[in-house]
């Protein structure tokens, strides 16, 4: 196992942090719009978990980067533009209806659970610690989303159609999760990362189980979009950032 270069290590942490932050932010957009009051609590809770995970990762990334980079966690969140964001495309997609949000969550959490589980064995003890908590949280997120997908899929004709539409629409954003590019490969080989090709089979198994139980069709192979981890995003991310970063951009350099 070789040493992981500092900038690769930083990049790897940033990818994880960005993905959790952006999905957490999407959850905060649901506030006041959820279908039932219990769901207001649940969605906010998921959002808090995800942003909490992101915050821990950003703070660690800042510590890892050391003196060469004097940005703090808030600078990373509020002062980077879309091309510098390294989140997965899936999580930046707009909330859409409740079916879209739950399918997006299930797709992501079914991935996050084995990723965090593997990261509990990271050579980076800080990451291993974060992963231990995050794995438990992600399991709850996965269960929550899966139960809703079951109810929507096996509910009414309308709900079945909506959730199937969401599965089909979001499918093309799932492929890049398992992409072992240079950063992921280097991180894995140095004991910091995860073998994402191995995660794929577990993800497919989970997703197939959920969709089958919900009487939904498992999509056929299709062209998969890529680019999130290298900063090539969909149109949706820019709008999220302009909302989230407004105060820091309009009143630069202040303490809040």
């Amino acid at each position, binding site marked *: 196992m070789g040493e992981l270069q500092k900038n690769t290590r930083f990049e790897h942490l940033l990818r994880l942090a960005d993905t959790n932050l952006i999905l957490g932010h999407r959850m905060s957009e649901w506030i006041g719009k959820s*279908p039932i009051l219990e769901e207001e609590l649940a969605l906010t809770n998921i959002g808090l978990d995800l*942003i909490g995970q992101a915050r821990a990762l950003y703070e660690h990334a800042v510590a890892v980067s050391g003196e060469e980079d004097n940005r703090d966690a808030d600078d990373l969140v509020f002062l980077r533009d879309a091309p510098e964001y390294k989140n997965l495309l899936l999580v930046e997609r707009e909330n859409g209806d409740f079916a879209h949000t739950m399918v997006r969550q299930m797709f992501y959490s079914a991935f996050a659970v084995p990723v965090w589980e593997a990261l509990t064995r990271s050579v980076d003890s800080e990451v291993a610690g974060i992963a231990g908590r995050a794995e438990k949280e992600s399991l709850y997120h996965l269960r929550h989303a899966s139960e809703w997908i079951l109810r929507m899929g096996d509910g009414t004709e309308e709900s079945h159609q909506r959730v199937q539409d969401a599965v089909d629409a979001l499918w093309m954003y799932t492929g890049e999760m398992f992409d072992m590019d240079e950063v992921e490969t280097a991180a894995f080989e140095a004991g910091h990362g995860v073998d994402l090709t191995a995660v794929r089979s577990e993800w497919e198994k989970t997703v197939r189980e959920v969709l089958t139980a919900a009487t939904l069709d498992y999509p056929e192979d299709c062209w998969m979009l890529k680019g999130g981890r290298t900063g090539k995003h969909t149109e949706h991310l820019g709008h999220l950032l302009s909302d989230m970063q407004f*105060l820091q951009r309009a009143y630069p350099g202040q303490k809040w």
Partner: protein
Amino acid sequence: MYSQGLMGVEETPGGEQDLLDRFQARIDAGEKIEPNDEMPEAYRKTLIRQMSQHAHSEIVGVYPEANWVTRAPTLRRKLQAMAKIQDEFGHGLYIYSAAETLGVSREEMVGQLLSGKAKYSSVFNYPTLNWADLAVIGWLGDGAAIMNQIPLCRCSYGPYARAMVLVCKEESFHQRQGYEAMVALMNGSPEQKAMGQDAVNRWWWPIMMMFGPHDADSPNTETGVKWKIKNFTNDELRQKFIKATVPQAKLIGIEIPDPDLRFNEETGDWEHGEIDWDEFWSVVKGQGPCNHDRITARRKAHAEGAWVLEAAQAYAAKQAARNAA
């Protein structure tokens, strides 16, 4: 958060004198009234109205804050804002459940909110126009709510009193957090200080109104006090609030936008300027700056979520049928 605003007793207690006497004796002895105990109809109705207004206020009160939650300026503030909102939804749910022990369903109560029949705290019909509004809502809004809710921890109806104990702990936390966010702004740049002062200028009077009409103009307070569902009058609570707030404002350089506010050495009370009751009543009656937006947002969530609820019900019915087979 919530403050009493319009509370009064539903109707003059009538009915059997025996029951009223027995009931009053229990209250005077400091006993808690529990869901299955006998109680005068006016007591039950008054509590349903008060508790449902309270629950609605917790829920509708989320909207002014939700308006800024996605724009919170740091990770810490973002997490704080989300956690506070989550608490408020929790309060709403908890108080709806407590009200259900009086024989009214949550659907019924929510239906009255959506139809516009039920009231909620008038203060939430004002807009949040800059980031400092969130700090001020926590500091002053939750601060005002605490004044009303702490005495409710000792109210005669058991389920409500117990709910208030938990709720008050969280509201106090919100109040301190709001003040701390305000301190950060008032220690900041001239622009941030201006935001803070602007927010207080806009919220001060609506928050003064939150305590409801002057005692002389609020009938039935007496019965409320007798039944221990209202332990202090509107003016007493307003006074407590001003007393607590003035030194906090001074400490951080906030000017309270009331030129007539002065301490009366003789009475030991703060005298404040005239409250614009015309404005208060027009907001209560639906003419406030955000009444329409708040109710529309609530109705929209309800309407857009209807298919999800139907799905859950259809699924439950199918499951029941499968289990029976």
